[in-house]
């Protein structure tokens, strides 16, 4: 596989959330800028933060934090260069839905746009207002922005920093992975799924995790405390800053101890920004030997979340992605009357899509709109 490049250890470690402020279009097609520090009012709002979106910008990633794992933050209002509401939070007096979704995120807030070809960006003076729900206590956060200004390719690539965290029980580490048939099959499967979206895997940097392996080999996340996940994603592992960092762990475990198969920061994640709790994604490797395609599916699914895609239909069918060409499976498809939509009920309505909420290895399709979003992400070339 010629697209594999073995790079063990720290390569190109040249950026962090405070240190990559070029203020100009760099040779790599990214323009980064510190926006300053902002203290929220008692309602949790930062006020308008000005953005100078370059005419050449194909995507914009505003990121703010950190504000702690016990606090949630989200976007309150984004106004475009014409002064129109590009996005408003559903609690905003001027709320009107647009083809954009922003999560409610703990500790660190990446906000990526556009996430739909129906809602593109234009250059000019924009404003961004964040909402940090800290219960009336003002929070001071640092904000910065990444503009992607190079051309968007129809045949795009994304570098992967694959980080092995205590999975030597599978015989898997940075030294063995390049020749591990199952691991390579997982990468091939993921690449095959992304092919419909015009995205392929670029350089693969193989990295052994050198931090607290005992802590992070099984990542424990709770419904109200995802600090262990966030602290892992903050770890400086090196690799390509313009790429995606994927931590391959033994398992992710929920509040009650159930197995979670994959989790991406955000979504979307803090692409090209290292050292934050939203700077990567985690994949459970337990299925690698039995079903490498399954691990590849999870890599493709979580990677697409990180780059800006949401589930085509969420578990109950009450929420969908902001894309026009992805099938929707709504609550009316829930023919058995239980509390979730299964693949059978959503046959022909998106269960064959990689971004269905419960995909399997037969969920192999991606749409043109999904590819449009993926290829625009700042982490992609």
């Amino acid at each position, binding site marked *: 596989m010629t697209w594999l490049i073995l790079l063990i250890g720290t390569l190109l470690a040249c950026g962090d959330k405070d240190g990559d402020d070029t203020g100009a279009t760099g040779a790599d097609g990214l323009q980064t800028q510190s926006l300053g520090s902002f203290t929220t009012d008692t309602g949790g709002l930062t006020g308008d933060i000005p953005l100078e979106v370059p005419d050449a910008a194909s995507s914009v990633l505003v990121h703010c934090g950190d504000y702690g794992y016990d606090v949630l933050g989200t976007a309150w209002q984004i106004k475009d260069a014409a002064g129109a509401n590009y996005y408003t939070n559903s609690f905003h007096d001027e709320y009107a839905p647009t083809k954009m979704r922003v999560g409610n995120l703990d500790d660190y807030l990446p906000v990526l746009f556009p996430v739909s070809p129906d809602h593109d960006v234009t250059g000019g003076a924009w404003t961004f207002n964040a909402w940090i729900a800290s219960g*009336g206590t003002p929070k001071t956060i640092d904000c910065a922005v990444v503009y992607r200004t190079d051309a968007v390719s129809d045949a795009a690539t994304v570098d992967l920093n694959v980080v092995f965290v*205590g999975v030597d029980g599978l015989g898997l580490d940075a030294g063995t992975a390049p020749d591990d048939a199952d691991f390579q099959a997982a990468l091939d499967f993921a690449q095959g799924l992304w092919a419909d979206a015009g995205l392929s895997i670029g350089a693969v940097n193989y990295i052994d995790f050198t931090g607290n392996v005992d802590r992070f080999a099984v990542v424990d996340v709770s419904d109200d405390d995802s600090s262990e996940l966030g602290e892992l994603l903050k770890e400086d592992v090196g690799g390509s800053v313009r790429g995606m960092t994927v931590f391959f762990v033994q398992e992710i475990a929920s509040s009650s101890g159930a197995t979670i198969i994959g989790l991406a920061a955000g979504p979307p994640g803090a692409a090209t920004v290292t050292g934050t709790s939203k700077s990567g994604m985690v994949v459970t490797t337990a299925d690698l030997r039995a079903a490498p395609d399954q691990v590849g599916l999870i890599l493709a699914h979580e990677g697409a979340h990180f780059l800006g895609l949401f589930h085509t239909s969420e578990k109950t069918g009450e929420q969908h992605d902001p894309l026009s060409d992805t099938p929707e499976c709504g609550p009316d498809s829930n023919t058995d009357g239980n509390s979730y939509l299964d693949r059978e009920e959503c046959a022909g309505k998106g269960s064959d899509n990689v971004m269905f909420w419960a995909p399997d290895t037969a969920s192999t399709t991606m749409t043109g709109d999904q590819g449009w979003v993926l290829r625009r992400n700042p982490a992609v070339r």
Partner: protein
Amino acid sequence: MRRALPALAHTALAHTALALAVALPLALAATSPALAGDLRAPVLAALAGVEDVPTAAELQAIGAGVEGELMEIAQDNSLVPTTRARAVHALGWFPSEGSQALLRSTLTGGDTLLARKAAYALANGWGDASVPLLQPALAASDVQLRIATVRALDGVGSEAARSALGQRLTLEANAEVAATIRKALAD
């Protein structure tokens, strides 16, 4: 990690943590179980999902026979480990002699992923009565099984569970396991 913001006006944003998905021990009356396999499709559908994990209510809503199907899935080598792991974990929501026997054997069976799920399931399903069953796993050779057992006993939270953790702390040599015990005892 995405979560729901409280449905409050933005001027009253006190963020209250979402309720934990606590696994309630539901002493379901033993009913005549369906033949293994009859419920395979709906139970597997409930166990699906990448980020979303199945809930007790979702599995219980499938009806009689789910416990038997979960036991079959838990032991089915043709299924991927994460599906089996979700089945083992879910057995904690269907406490019976049969499920406990399977969980006890899984706890010591040598598959560390399934053993961790068995530890949580025993704690979730049997509460304080699981403490003597779990205590030996605090001395397991696998660090991640020890951490999972600590967290499972932390979830039980009883005096007996805390006592077991306190005893282990005096012996525990691994820094991460010890830190997890200390955090549990501090809660």
